[in-house]
Structures are given as C-alpha cells and as structure tokens.
C-alpha cells in the first residue's frame, strides 16, 4: 500500500465536497439519427462527481449508460450524434473543445477501460507498443521511454513476466490479462478521471474479483475519480462510493452506495433489488419487474418506468417526475416516493 494519506483522501472525498467537482454534467441529451430511426439515448442527465470519488452507473441494457460515459469524452460518432447540455471535466467544457484540445484531454485527463479488452486493443500491434504510443503522445517521450513506462505499468497491474508480455499481441493474452493490460494503458498518463464501461462483465467470477480489487487499489493509490458502468449490483457494491441508477436515458435514483442498496426508493431500483435470485428465495417466486424497457426511438411522455411500475397512476404516465432530495445526497425521480419508503 502506497500511503495512508492517499487512502484517506479517497475515502473522505465525497464528504469533504471540495470547491469544484471533477465532473459536472448538466442536462445532457444525446440523440442519434440514423436513416432508419431516431434514437433518444440520453434525455437530460445531471451528474456531478467529486475528485477521488467512485461512481457507479447502474441500469438495464440500453438505458444509456455507455452513451453517457462516452459523452464525457465525446467519443460518439460526430456525424450522427446530437449532443446538448453541458459536460465539464476538470474545469474544461468538453463539448466546446477543439479537436486538438480534445485529443490532449483524452487519455490524459480522462481515460477509459472497455468491456471487451480483446476488442479494445489493435490486433496488429503489440500491447507494449500500444501503451508506449499513448505515453509518447501525451508526454512527448521516446518510444524507449514509453516502453519502459509500459513495463512499469505492467508490474503495477501485476502481469506476470511483464517484459515478455509487452511483446505479445492482444490475441495472445487471456481475458483477465488483457483487461489488466487495458487498465495499464488507461493509467499510463495518470488520468484524473477513469471511465470504465462494464470492465468485468466479460470475465469469469474469479477473475472479475481480481480486477475489481486491482481497480480499487489503484484508484486509492492514484486518487483518481472513477465512473464505473455496470448492471451488476454486487459489482457496484464492491467498487463504488456512490450509485446512480439509470432507466431509459434518465437518472432515476442516486445516492451513497450503502443507502441505495439498503433503502432503494425508486420503484425501479426496488424492483431490481427484489427480483434478484438468491439462495434465500429458493422455491419462491421472484417478484420480477414485468414487461421490458421502452423503445428509445419513441420513449413514453411521462415517467418511462410507469408502464412497468406497480405504483403508477395517471400522473406518472403524463408528466415527468423531477429529482427529489431524500437526504444525505440520496435523490430519486418519482411521483410516488411516498409509497416506496420502507
């Protein structure tokens, strides 16, 4: 462990609430236009992330988690994406950046880890080269120095026989190994913000936990902020300080991880918690959320969850609920919060 100081900073970060948050997303909308249909992937997301904080975005497939994450780096295909709202990272307005600024920002201020590490590496370059290339790009050092840094990083993410692995091509690494390499790559320029899009979903349980632990450790050591996307509540619990639950392109509930897991308030979060299969429920029916998420090319007018919600009434299908503060940074967007208090 590097130092206690670092650990403490990380732990205190959310409470200390320093002057400026690292990430500030205001009213983010992301629409995709394809020749066939219009997809409203993200519809008004507000999100802040303090320095050193780990936030998990939790939600079903298609709820807009990845799109939100990619908006932070403006990685969405420019031609067909309409981005509105504001995204500020480390005091910079991401949506207003020029190409140059953007490419300085990417990888240096914010870095990203992908779900399928195998696919996120260029198959015809060695992993070492791909890391060195990033270092060269951002720090203007030679390839040799870049490779030296890569070696250091490989040791850091505990890749055995690091030197040999550097010369490997991506397909020669196993799943866990390549995710470690991916993390090494993301950390190569000591980013302030690490974005992780379901980095463990493709991995086996025994490997997943290794990666989670590694990430947690590195986050503490480097004092990074992390936004972590997953649909696995357990993973969220393992890694994050705060959870933001997304449904149909909107945040429906956010709060400290313990609070949200212990006392979820939004009916969707509640439903998720209760529909989880576990040993205790053996032989009983699960209280599943009925139906399926809405089609994002034609989202319903009111609360998007209303059609599946056991508490829904007329208001819900007509008007969009705003975020209500429930204390301690725990907030939820629902008209019927009264009914969901345990």
């Amino acid at each position, binding site marked *: 462990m590097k130092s206690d100081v670092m650990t403490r900073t990380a732990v205190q970060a959310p409470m200390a609430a320093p002057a400026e948050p690292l990430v500030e997303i205001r009213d983010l909308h992301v629409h995709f236009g394809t020749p066939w249909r219009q997809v409203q992937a993200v519809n008004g997301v507000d999100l802040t992330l303090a320095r050193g904080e780990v936030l998990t975005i939790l939600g079903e497939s298609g709820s807009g988690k990845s799109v939100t994450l990619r908006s932070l780096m403006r990685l969405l295909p420019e031609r067909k994406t309409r981005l509105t709202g504001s995204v500020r990272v480390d005091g910079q307005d991401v949506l207003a950046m020029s190409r140059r600024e953007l490419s300085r*920002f990417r990888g240096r201020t914010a870095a990203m880890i992908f779900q399928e590490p195998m696919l996120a590496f*260029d198959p015809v370059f060695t992993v070492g080269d791909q890391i060195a290339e990033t270092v060269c790009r951002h720090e203007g050092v030679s390839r040799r120095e870049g490779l030296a840094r890569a070696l250091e990083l490989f040791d850091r993410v505990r890749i055995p026989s690091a030197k040999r692995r550097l010369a490997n091509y991506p397909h020669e690494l196993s799943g866990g190994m390549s995710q470690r390499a991916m993390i090494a790559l993301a950390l190569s320029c000591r980013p302030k913000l690490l974005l992780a899009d379901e980095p463990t979903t493709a991995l086996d349980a025994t490997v997943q936990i290794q990666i989670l632990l590694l990430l947690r450790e590195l986050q503490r050591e480097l004092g990074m902020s992390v936004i972590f996307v997953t649909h696995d509540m357990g993973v969220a619990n393992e890694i994050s300080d705060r959870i933001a639950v997304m449904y149909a392109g909107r945040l429906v509930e956010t709060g400290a991880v313990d609070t949200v897991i212990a006392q979820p308030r939004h009916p969707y979060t509640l439903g998720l918690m209760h529909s989880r299969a576990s040993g205790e429920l053996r032989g009983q029916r699960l209280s599943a959320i009925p139906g399926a998420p809405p089609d994002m090319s034609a989202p319903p007018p009111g609360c998007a969850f209303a059609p599946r919600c056991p508490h829904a009434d007329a208001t819900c299908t007509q008007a969009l609920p705003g975020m209500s503060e429930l204390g301690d940074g725990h907030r939820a967007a629902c008209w019927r919060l009264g009914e969901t208090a345990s």
Partner: protein
Amino acid sequence: MSTYFLKRILYVVPITLAVSFFCFSLVHLSPGDPMDAVVSADAPREVVAMVERAYGFDRPLPEQFALWVSRALQGDLGLSAANGRAVTTEVFAALKNTLLLALAASLIGFTLGCTFGLLAGYWQGSLLDRLVTGFAVGGVSVPHYWLGMLLVIVFSVELNWLPSSGAGPGSSNDWAFEWAYLRHLILPAVTLSVIPMGVVTRTVRAMVAEILAHEFVEALRAKGLAEKRVFLHVVKNVAPTALAVMGLQLGYLLGGSILVETVFSWPGTGLLLNNAIFQRDLPILQGTILVLALFFVLLNLIVDLAQARLDPRIQRS
C-alpha cells in the same frame, strides 16, 4: 519456420500436379487435329504423316502425357506446332513482357486504389467517398478491351499522342526505360490498371470502414491519439488483406491481360495465347497456361506467406 508456413509451402505440390494434369487434359479436350497447325491444309498425306512422326503426335495419349510431364520437369515444354521453336523460350520471352505490363498496371492501379480506398473509407459517406465509389464501380464494370479501344481512339487516332500498339521502336528485347519505349506502355498499362484500381479501391474502402467500426478505434481515440496516428493503425490493419487482394490482382493481371494485349498487340503471354488458340498451336497453349497457372500458384503462396508475416493473428495462433 512455423508449421503453418511449412504446410502452406507443401500444399503447393499437389496443386501443381493437379494443375499440370488439368493443362494436359485441357488440350486434349479440344476438337480438331494438332497437325492442322503444322502443315497447311493442302499438304499431301505423306507429308502430314511425316511431320506427325517428327512431332510425336502419332504416339498414344498416355505416352504423350508421361513424356510431356517428364520433359516439363526438366523445363522442356515441347516445340511450338506453329513455328517449331521451343515452347519454354517462347513463353518466357512473352512472360517477361506480360510481367512488365502487369507490374506497370499494378503500380498505377494499386497506388490509386489504395489512396482512393483509404480516403473514401475514412470519410465514408462524404462526397469524396461517393465520387470514389462511383469511380471504382466504373473500374470494375468497364470492359477493359473496350476501354483500350476508346483510349486508342482518343489518344492515338484523334490526338495522335501515343502509339496504339507494340512494345516499342526496337523490340521487347531491347526494352528500356526511355520515353520511346514508355510511350508504348502507357495506354495498355492504364487500360489494364482500371480493374485492379476498382477492386483495390472497393476492398480497401470496405476494409477501412469495417476497421473503423471496431471498438479498438474508439479505444485509440479515447487514448487521445492524433487522427494521423489512428489512421496509421487503420492502415496497418488493412494492410494484410489489402496485400492479399493486390497479390491476387497481380496474378489476375498476368493471366487476364490477354484481351488488352490483343487490343494493343503487346507481345506478352496473352497475345501468345491468342495466337496459339487461333493457330491451334496446342503445345504453346498448354505451355502458356501451365506457366501462367504455376506463376499464379507461386504468387498465391508468396501472398499467403507475406500475409501471415504481416498479420500476427495468423502466424502465431
């Protein structure tokens, strides 16, 4: 050397055998008498019989085949029925010219094709892309023998800028990189380059588009790499496939230049083959096809090996 390499190389042996067998039987599919080419139709019968003996056409087929293969192994493909010269010399003299033409055409076609393909693929959907795509479709759709005629009309008949036929003022034996010779190469090479240009453009464009859709490209951008560098990655990914396509195209040019060589009277294998067909010069027909096919087999081998070298996924897995 990996087993892949060894296997790939050994695989050439059965293919070569099969190809030779095909060439031999191909010729004996043909109706008509190989003698027609050697003696004129008004020759008396005893002369025909005499020449037949001299050429060995009177022996039974299997014997002819055995003889042909054993001689072919020693580089002797028999004598031309039309002029009595050694087929090997004839074919290789022509092959040299065809190679020259094919290489010139490839140079033009591949350069343009790669450039166009990379640009169009990179800016997919743009006006440039649409222009290039249209051009490439034109390239693969144009009957090149017709294009050759068209070029002759414009540049030789109407403008009188470039010669319309032949290999140059001396002969192809004296071929030199001098304007007097290069002039002769321009029209046939341009004509012949149109197809590889189209094919390479289309392949490279599709490949680039496909590569760009890969997640790793997003990852590269997420690392903050400059577009130039991203482009380099794309190019390196496209390279193995593009190389394979180009290798094949070069092979097709070698074998497929017959129409263009006929239009421009370029003294290559195509013209040789064309003459052989019409003179029913079966030994030349056999020999040319065999040599071209074997050349193509060899080229395929080289391409595969090169591709394996370039693409770490093939070689190491």
